[in-house]
């Protein structure tokens, strides 16, 4: 199967994502420049981390208008699996593919450290190989990862089980101490209502081999290989069947 890694001017984790897909997992992977207008038959789309368009105006605000984003919207609407990592998550929020917005970290600092996140939902293409409640050790690297949505939106996310990852302690408890950036309800990652679009602030692609200090992130990539090879999330009808 084939991964498309979208490259915006200012993306800087595109190579890490490409490496994880191609070298660690042995899958096909192709870079897609943001000015292109085709995803070239990809089965999975990754919006990588970085500082797309310098993060001018707001994080992800300009990237949303890149020509390739029309194809990403179409791919997502048809049930295709899309993963937004860090800046890619911010792009998904600005593009309206996921609800909410990012504020500056409550520390006002750019934070670069390993954190613990709990997998709460396993019926998404990127957590299909996980166990519910599994705690992963994955690095974060961001200045604006303080997730915010209005209380009614957060309530809807909880009701629809769209909170996929939450910052927790080693015991899987979402304490304030475990929250690195002030995100509402310790939210680290979300999925869309259709469940095929997933965004998270931590960097699973930077935790795919023990040489990197943790290999816990690999399971997100293994999950999507499993989900796509089993036929889930490759077309809308099947995506709905799995979500149920």
């Amino acid at each position: 199967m084939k991964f498309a890694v979208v490259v915006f001017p200012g993306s800087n984790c595109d190579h890490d994502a490409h490496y994880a897909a191609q070298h660690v997992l042995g899958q096909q992977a192709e870079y897609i420049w943001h000015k292109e207008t085709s995803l070239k038959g990809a089965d999975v789309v990754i919006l990588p981390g970085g500082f797309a368009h310098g993060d001018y105006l707001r994080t992800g605000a300009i990237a949303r208008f890149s020509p390739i984003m029309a194809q990403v919207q179409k791919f997502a609407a048809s049930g295709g699996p899309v993963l937004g990592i860090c800046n890619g998550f911010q792009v998904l929020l600005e593009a309206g593919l996921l609800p909410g917005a990012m504020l500056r970290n409550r520390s006002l600092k750019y934070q670069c450290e390993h954190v613990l996140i709990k997998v709460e939902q396993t019926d998404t293409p990127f957590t299909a190989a996980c166990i519910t409640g599994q705690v992963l050790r994955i690095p974060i690297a961001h200045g604006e990862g303080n997730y915010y949505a209005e209380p009614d939106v957060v309530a809807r996310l909880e009701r629809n089980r769209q909170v996929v990852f939450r910052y927790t302690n080693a015991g899987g408890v979402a304490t304030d101490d475990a929250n690195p950036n002030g995100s509402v309800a310790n939210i680290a990652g979300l999925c869309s209502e259709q469940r095929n679009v997933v965004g998270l602030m931590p960097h699973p692609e930077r935790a795919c081999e023990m040489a990197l200090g943790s290999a816990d992130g690999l399971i997100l990539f293994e999950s999507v290989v499993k989900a796509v090879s089993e036929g889930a999330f490759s077309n809308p009808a099947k995506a709905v069947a799995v979500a149920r």
Partner: protein
Amino acid sequence: MRARVFVTLKPSVFDPQGKTVTDALHTLGYSAVKDVRQGKYFELEIEARRPEEARKLAAEAADKLLSNPVIESYRIEIADEVIA
């Protein structure tokens, strides 16, 4: 015609930068400053015949790009309108 667009976080959204600036002002002894909200300021040069036209265009720009309605609100001033 010049439109000025002021974008700030909605009152319901916590502003960590504004809070830090408030604290710094308090440290300097400005205890009369009760709150600071930090935002963004844009000046748009717009070709328009009437102020309402410029205002309408600036509002569209603010809705679509300059602000994120999830967390921010905005206020517009048309320069020529103020003078006239």
